[in-house]
């Protein structure tokens, strides 16, 4: 489980770092369109939600 924990922690770290950085880079910071930063952050949030759906699928009625 430790490996899985490190994998998910690393993945989330990279995703959140990207959410802070990418909209401020030339890739998106002059794209004045809805498919720029607006779409990027929406996709970011949806990917996080899907990842949490995968992780929490192991949460069963224990205890």
């Amino acid at each position, binding site marked *: 489980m430790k490996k899985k*924990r490190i994998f998910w*922690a690393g993945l989330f770290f990279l995703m*959140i770092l990207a*959410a802070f950085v990418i*909209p401020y880079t030339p890739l998106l910071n002059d794209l004045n369109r809805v498919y720029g930063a607006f779409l990027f952050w929406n996709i970011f*949030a949806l990917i996080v939600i899907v990842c*949490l759906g995968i992780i*929490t699928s192991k949460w069963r009625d*224990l205890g």
Partner: protein
Amino acid sequence: MSATTIYLALFLYFIVGSIIARYAGRKMGGGVNEYFLAGRSLGGVVAALTYSATTYSAFMLVGLAGFTYIGGVGALGFELIYLSGLVLVAFFGPRLWLVGKRYNYLTPTEMLGDRYQSKAVAVVSAVAAVIFLIPYSAVQLIGIGALVEGISGGTVPFLAGVGIASFIAVYWTWTGGLRAVAWTDSLQAAVMLIVAVLSVVFIAYRGFGGFGNLFTALESQYPAWLTVPGPGFFNIHAFIGLTLPWFFFSLSNPQVSQRLFMPRSLAQMRIMVMGFLIFGFIYTLVSILWGFSARLLLPDLEVADAATPALLGLDIVPASVALLVMLGISAAAVSTVNSIILTLSSMITRDVFKNIREDSIAHQELLVGRIFVPLFTVLILGFATLRLDLIAALSVASSAGLLVMVPALIGAFFWKRGTAPAVILSVVGGGIVATVLQYSGLKPFGFWPGVWSGVISTILFVGVSLLTRAPENKAEEFIGYLQEELDSKEVI
């Protein structure tokens, strides 16, 4: 809108909620666990709704819409990174839930005190939470007061709005403890979401002819609002300064982290987490679209927070929908305030009173907790009526101030070397830094108070831990138990 209509709407809202609260009160068993945690037996849907209603306050449709109005799409990034902070619950949720059951913890600060084997840790953390959450709650009441005053054209006085909201919060909380709070929160969360979605559809279609046209208008008239830093409000320092402390909200705010003790099973906690994520995603988008609409329809507002009341005053929003939105915003504020009141009361009774009076018996503990429900309400009401600058500063500082709990919480579960003196120094030192920087307006090297309080509390926690002696046996037993339990269930 007439004063009579507003009073009548608030009265009906109070009556419906009170019926639910009374019913919840009748279902309530005895004891502090029942009063403050609903007996750790919440179902996933109610847990998701109370988690949502507690997390999302009047800030969303007022403050976030205002941020969008002046700063553009950066507000979306800020709020969605905040939502993504739920990834922390993936790691800490099952851990808090398991130790909560095993050691019968009532509050997250009690957990810290036991884990670090120090009553002072529990007391200091609880007091820090009180200091930062009282002004934050007062600002919620101020929000309701200002909203009803604005929407009624001054015929409903500010104090009437603040007073009514306080009475509703304390009555429901007193009547049925957490169960009443959770059930009324569920109703309020539903009202918040339905009304918000309904209103944004009205604005988009009646104001622009549809969402597509809204975005087209935005791209042509305010293209900078679709980028960061865009109009300038969300420069990188401001973005990090606002977003970083709020990313840790699910851990740092005890009224939220205490909710991780409440689901009756991990399967129900899963429903809670996923339900909250869906709620939060929709509610965020609605608040942002609200702000963009105000930008296009009302380009000359001087105060960004006026975007919502001004939008409600336009012809495109029917009076009935405007009234419902006012109720939805009031519900968002009340549901945050009553949860905070209950959590702070549980912290005073368990982390302060029980540590001072070790011989206290269960019913005394419950009595003290219940007495603090109206006491905290009066205190918050008093702060709200003062409308001091300090309250606003402390309220903004709340996220930066509460962030100082995070190193200790992470250490509790993942670092056996963490010590009690380190927790106390990191909470006190980080809290002072957050308050001083926020109040003075200083931003050393351009970084905001939340960044500094996080960095300093982390350095203090790690540094002092390395110089002092850790409670080795407790750390071994606590973390060892979790490792064994989680590994056997394949939970990360």
